[in-house]
């Protein structure tokens, strides 16, 4: 498993007596409270595990929430068939090392039919391989609550998402009819067939996530770190060579020192040029960035409000 090397050793935890708690301690306490509420109030919760940095933080919080008991729900990975091989290897090894139960679900009929973002457009590809697969998996296992690692700072419609996001029996989100959510009192009541998506990291920002990974020494996939990697270079865009169909006629990969800022499906996840080989370097780079982490994902830019539309249909 890739082990994260940090050049700066975390400082000792701030002393409680010194006064106030840090923002990360407060965020951690809030997230753990949410994880425990869901585990206690739902019959069949599951944690959506996407292998990315947010999932990694969420998983560590789950370990903390129930320590010394094991995590009382399984992890579910929706595999589109286009995830990076490194991600899948990391997923299997890491789940095993922490003793978590891992479920993997793929929309096999759609994959067998050759669904990809070039044949279809990205919106329909996502609809089949992600949204449909997720809804099928939730129904198959009869899960009534599903944790997701989404954060409100990612995108405008996410900013309006509740921590407990109610979904009707078709798995859909109605943004204009959300349950009020006050204090830390979450309404877990649902009718049969309905479900709740739960976002324990709602109040975390991208910066918080990286700082926490740094402080807690949480292992993350090596793709986040800058390495010499073969890429198709198209203007400013760097496309990983993971899938053959991405290649244009006559196109040849070049070695570029680059990394991924968010981990998605390889055909739709662009890399960025970077020298950041450590978490502190990633954080330093983050500070200098002037564009959001999803800017390199083709799927969110199809049309104004495309994330809201996907969420209404049942996407995370």
């Amino acid at each position, binding site marked *: 498993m890739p082990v994260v090397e940090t050049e*700066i050793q975390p400082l000792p935890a*701030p002393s*409680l007596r010194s006064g*106030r*708690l*840090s*923002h*990360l301690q*407060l*965020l*951690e*306490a*809030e997230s*753990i*409270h949410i994880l*425990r*509420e869901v585990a206690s109030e739902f019959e069949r919760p599951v944690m959506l595990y996407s292998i990315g940095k947010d999932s990694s933080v969420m998983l560590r919080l789950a*370990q*903390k*929430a*129930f*320590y*010394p008991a094991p995590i009382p729900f399984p992890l579910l990975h929706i595999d589109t068939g286009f995830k990076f091989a490194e991600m899948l290897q990391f997923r299997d090894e890491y789940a095993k090392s922490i003793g978590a139960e891992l479920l993997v679900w793929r929309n096999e009929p759609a994959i067998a039919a050759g669904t990809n973002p070039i044949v279809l457009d990205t919106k329909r590809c996502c609809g089949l391989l992600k949204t449909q697969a997720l809804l099928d998996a939730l129904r198959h296992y009869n899960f009534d609550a599903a944790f997701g690692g989404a954060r*409100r*700072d990612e995108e*405008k*419609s996410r*900013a*309006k998402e509740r921590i407990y996001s109610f979904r009707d029996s078709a798995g859909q989100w109605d*943004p*204009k009819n*959300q*349950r*009020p959510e*006050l*204090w*830390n*009192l979450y*309404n877990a*009541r649902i*009718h049969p067939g309905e479900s709740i998506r739960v976002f324990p990291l*709602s*109040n975390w*920002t*991208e*910066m918080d996530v990286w*700082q926490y990974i740094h*402080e807690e020494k949480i292992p993350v996939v090596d793709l986040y770190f800058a390495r010499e990697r073969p890429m198709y270079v198209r203007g400013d865009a760097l496309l990983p060579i993971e899938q053959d169909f991405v290649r244009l006629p006559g196109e040849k990969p070049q070695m570029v020192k680059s990394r991924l800022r968010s981990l998605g499906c390889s055909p739709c996840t662009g890399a960025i040029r970077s020298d950041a080989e450590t978490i*502190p370097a990633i*954080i*330093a780079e*983050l*500070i*200098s*960035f*002037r*564009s*959001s982490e999803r800017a390199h994902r083709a799927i969110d830019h199809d049309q104004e*409000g495309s994330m*809201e539309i996907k969420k209404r249909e049942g996407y995370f």
Partner: protein
Amino acid sequence: MGVAVDLENSKFDIGDFLAREREKDLLRFSTAGSVDDGKSTLIGRLLYDTQSVYDDHVRSIEGKGTAAPGQIDFALLTDGLRAEREQGITIDVAYRYFSTAHRKFIIADTPGHEQYTRNMATGASTADAAIVLIDASKGVLVQSRRHAYIASLLRVRHVLVAVNKMDLIGFDEAAFRTIEAEFSAVLDQIAADTRSPLERHFVPVSALAGDNVVHRSPSMPWYTGPSLLELLATLPSAQDTRSGPFRFPVQRVLRPDRSFRGFAGQIASGTIRPGDEVIVLPSNRSASVERIVSWDGDLDEAVAPLSVTLVLDRELDIGRGDLIATASAPATVARSLRAAVVWMDRRPLDLSRRYLLKHSSQTVPAYPASIDYRTDLATLARVPAQTLEMNDIGALTVNLRRPIALDLYGINRNTGAFILIDPETNATVAAGMVTAALSAVSTGIEDDSAAWGRVTAEEREARWGHRGGVLELSGPVALINAIERSLFAVGVVSSRIDLSEGPLERHPNLLEIIAGIQTRSGLLTLAAHTTESSKLNARIDGEQVSVNAEENARAITAVHQLLHRVGFFISSEKAAL
């Protein structure tokens, strides 16, 4: 993102940066308003000027909305839903994040119109501070008053009054001072009504031009105070919950094997250390804390609001919903409560129906017994009401099927808050803030140690023939004296508090605290308000009578009948004069 760092500055050091970052604290604040008063523009400006917006977000809105080509309509940075962008309004609560050198901020951004009162309450429920907007060109409108009232009702301590659009009135100081004086009076009135002291700060701003939002304004040299962001950066952060008595609602019992049994939860208030004596409510059993367990190792001390796991020194039957509290100041066990509520559902409150009350980590069937009043937010008058409709604010008396351990909301925002859920639709229909715990009863679980433990409410009731309560009396002093004497004559153990007493006027919370303690101790508190009126008003548990004060004997009888009606006496003989 959201961190302004000058990378050109060669002194930037990532190690220093991380060390500073980990010391950052957190402040949550709410805003309410509409596009008309420039709320979205204000927030957009706050985000933009603290460099908390990504370039691709800015590019995606450049030249759109009401902005001229190449300019930015800041409101578009915050309106997230399609319907909002299309209609130019804010519908729902949105959360925004930014940070400065020493603090991270979470904004609960809410719409300000009357039909979104419930959203405002949602945003205020977790806020340490609230920004109330006033359009300088329009003066104090009912919307600003409503927002300040809700912030106060939900116990938001700091109110930042942003008098916006100063550019439209030529940055006129006199106009600002007039608004300041007028709204100060409104805030005084609100604080008196909600009994929640408000700390207020007035700032003249122009969100559109950026004056006094992040940077101080050169256009208003007469204003020498801090900008809005400077204020936010220096307010005391997260309400100090660690200093209160220890409260720990048990969320879950962790039992990985036979040797370990821990109680997982988030500390609602106070501090805990191994060896501390605790009491488990509502069953009233004592224990002491043996270990505070966390993934990062056992702790010597844990403070609110950390999430931890407690191991006690003895085997007790403890489950989800129980409250572990400090033995020296336990919470109140109540089967009936009075609360301020915000009604949030399209279906109005139905007094004949059963609801579910979710409080800390438990849910109990609840029966609304009476609507004590509804508050008219335009005038702050308390008016009688038959029901509460969506966005109404009122006071309710609720009976519970099982007793729960709670505190008054004015004392503890965590253990004094609840939501009501409609068991048919599963909708969250109301937010409640406990203002009185009406009848403290034990669960009836008895064990040998009870004879040696604290004197229970039942033991007091058995001896005195009545329970505790607060009887509010207003009328001529001679008649109140006569009522007090008549109650004394039938053996009621009472104490009298005159509301005009100095310390009570200065500390409106004090009465609630004293009355709470006395009620738990089984005493009848006579809260006396003397007037020259020819009417006598008496009220207890939300029931009230109003009688002619000239007819002394009838008035006294009416008060005794009232006490009888609300079940104050457990034996009927004493109710007879």
